[in-house]
């Protein structure tokens, strides 16, 4: 394995100071479940691993004035065991249950899954439909970035070298009761997604009152399907609408082919996942 230094600070402030000093040399790690395979593959040139898994102030799930806050160091297991996540963010809860396996979920964190910026990051589509906002910190202060503006390409984000994600915020009006998440992998366990679909849908008097759709593994970044959403708004729910929306979904996704599936298959199955999710939510 490549050589690197290892530091495990006990406070967020210490982390931010080190980030400021060392900048590009640093890779922040928590569960290490993505980073160690990269290092073994020699895909990661980091000189310094900054382990934030021991920092208690980054590990919480709380509700305050109707908003849900999730600390970046919260593990996927903690999401599953949280009553707030189960009741208020069911779409995220389902994605956490489908994540890897129970053992990896004890190490992997929500912040790590986002910062890794894989197009297949499983917590990204549910957080996109929940209109999550990231709180990003550096020693100079805090800024908020909506998740939809966070990813800029495969493994690329707007995070600057001296910044870290400190928490994820979900606003009151986006907490949902009628959401679903579907993961398509080559097998159930430990699979990197072939495609994922998260959807929140409100139907009133048989018309689409509100809909938000996001998918993973079907574009260079986890993607909100804004054009499909716009097409669906205020339309009457019937078979014809679903068929037309499937075509819209297939237009809007922009997949690549890889070892798990061809681009053609991903485009095709995106429409199928849309149909499954939509039918699940209207029934």
């Amino acid at each position: 394995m490549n050589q690197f230094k290892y530091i495990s600070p006990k406070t967020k402030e210490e982390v931010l100071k080190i980030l400021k000093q060392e900048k590009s040399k640093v890779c922040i790690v928590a569960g290490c479940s993505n980073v160690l395979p990269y290092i073994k593959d020699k895909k990661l040139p980091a000189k310094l691993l900054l382990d934030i898994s021991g920092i208690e102030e980054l590990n919480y799930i709380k509700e305050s004035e109707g908003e849900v806050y999730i600390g970046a160091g919260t593990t996927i297991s903690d999401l599953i065991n949280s009553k707030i996540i189960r009741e208020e963010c069911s779409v995220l809860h389902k994605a956490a249950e489908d994540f890897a396996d129970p053992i990896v979920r004890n190490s992997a964190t929500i912040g790590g899954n986002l910062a890794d910026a894989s197009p297949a990051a499983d917590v990204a589509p549910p957080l996109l439909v929940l209109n999550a906002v990231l709180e990003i910190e550096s020693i100079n202060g805090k800024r908020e970035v909506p998740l939809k503006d966070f990813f800029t390409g495969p493994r690329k984000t707007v995070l600057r070298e001296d910044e870290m994600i400190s928490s994820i915020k979900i606003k009151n009006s986006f907490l949902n009761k009628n959401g679903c998440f579907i993961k398509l992998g080559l097998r159930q366990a430990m699979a990197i997604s072939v495609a994922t679909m998260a959807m929140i849908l409100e139907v009133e008097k048989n018309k689409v009152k509100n809909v938000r759709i996001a998918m993973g593994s079907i574009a260079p970044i986890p993607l909100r399907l804004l054009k499909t959403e716009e097409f669906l708004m205020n339309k009457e729910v019937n078979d014809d609408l679903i068929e037309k929306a499937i075509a819209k979904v297939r237009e809007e996704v922009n997949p690549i082919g890889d070892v798990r599936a061809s681009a053609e298959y991903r485009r095709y199955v995106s429409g199928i996942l849309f149909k499954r999710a939509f039918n699940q939510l209207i029934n």
Partner: protein
Amino acid sequence: MNEIPIEFSINGQKRKVLVKPNDLLINIIRDELYLTGTKYGCGIGECGACTVFLDDEPVLSCLTLAAAVDGKEITTIEGLAKGNKLHPMQIAFLKNAAVQCGFCTPGMILTAVALLKENPSPTEEEIKDYMRGNICRCTGYVQIVKAIKACAEGGENESI
């Protein structure tokens, strides 16, 4: 490369070792402490053979840096039995012939113990879901699921 002194408890014994920043926990357990019950399978967190308990939670020791376990408690398969008395899950695996080549068995048993701690009477589906990251290349899953069920039904799953 600078070595880091760490101290942790493994199977109830305090140990002090010097580790390099890029040492993996599994290599320290196997090559420094000679506890070879923990198996190195895929090395990238796909197979579950290297499962150990870290502060009572199952983790993959091939995806854990040794430097990160400073001050923590580790239990490996060697720490499950009490003296000559096997853990009920080990007995259940033996009784139900849930071992073929044996390579996945340490990881399987530790994961199964963790399952029963969270959920003392799981359904077959719940067992399969929880064990989904532990791979048996002999494909002896039927006996493994049977053993876990038997252990749960026997009500013998003491905490370790």
